């Protein structure tokens, strides 16, 4: 009997590789928030902190936030009105409740429609997902703030929040 070992091994390797890529893509599908694609939004919202995915908050939250950039979590992040308007448009049209944002809809589920939370890190679902992170880790010098997603989610810039 002559078993063709090499083609078999090759086939197995190809299969393993595809499985790896596929599982990665699936994990991405479940914890993927499309990152900001607009260069202007990336520049203006991503200089001080990660340019948070617009699908992480509902449209009303983005509108409220963009309406008070002078008091942006303790910083004055004022922009020229035309720039601010363009950014608001982008955030609103890609917001969690803009339709088709699977992960964003989950993250913001159960929110009181009358409330417009400004902090992603105060969404009930966010709090639940991070309940096992101990306090000392949040205070670690490489983390320091809950807004520092990339400290733990190495691929956050690209939209992946799996690990």
């Amino acid at each position, binding site marked *: 009997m002559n078993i063709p070992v090499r083609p078999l091994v090759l086939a197995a390797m190809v299969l393993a590789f595809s499985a790896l890529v596929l599982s990665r893509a699936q994990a991405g599908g479940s914890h993927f928030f499309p990152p900001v694609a607009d260069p202007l939004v990336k520049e203006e919202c*991503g*200089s*001080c*902190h*990660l340019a948070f995915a617009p699908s992480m908050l509902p449209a009303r939250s983005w509108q409220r936030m963009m309406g008070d950039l002078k008091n942006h979590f*303790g*910083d*004055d*992040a004022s922009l020229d009105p035309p720039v601010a308007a363009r950014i608001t448009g982008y955030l609103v049209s890609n917001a969690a409740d803009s339709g088709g944002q699977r992960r964003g809809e989950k993250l913001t589920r159960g929110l009181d429609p009358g409330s417009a939370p400004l902090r992603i890190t105060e969404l009930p679902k966010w709090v639940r997902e991070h309940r096992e992170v101990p306090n000392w880790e949040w205070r670690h010098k*490489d*983390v*320091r*703030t809950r*807004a*520092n997603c*990339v*400290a733990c989610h190495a691929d956050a810039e690209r939209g992946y929040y799996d690990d």
Partner: protein
Amino acid sequence: MTKPLATPLLAALLLLPLAVAASPLDDQLARYAAAAKAGDPGFAGFSAARGKTLHTQAFALGKPDTPACTSCHGPDTRGAGKTPAGKTIEPVALSATPGRYADPAKVEKWFKRNCNEVLGRECTPREKGDWLTFMAGQ
């Protein structure tokens, strides 16, 4: 007939702006100098030494977590800095980040924000010119 001549002529015309126009940073420094002189007739030019002091001194006049420019930009002008939210900031030294001061509006935007955060007020044209002069030589 005209073709052999047209090519070098066109090339010369295209290169002309490069030779004549100052960089956006030079233009901005000239505008700050004019504004500084308008406010103080005794103004005698920018000083990298004053710029260095401005950059490194702890003022603690603005926000508590940013007493100095170096709070975020770091002690080394040629090294990267870090924002409180963990974003890396490109080095402030022009030699380390050559394209850094090419957009005057962007420079103004950050002066406004950062001076308020560190000094609790906007910077004067002289301070801005001093600081940029220091960074241009770094």
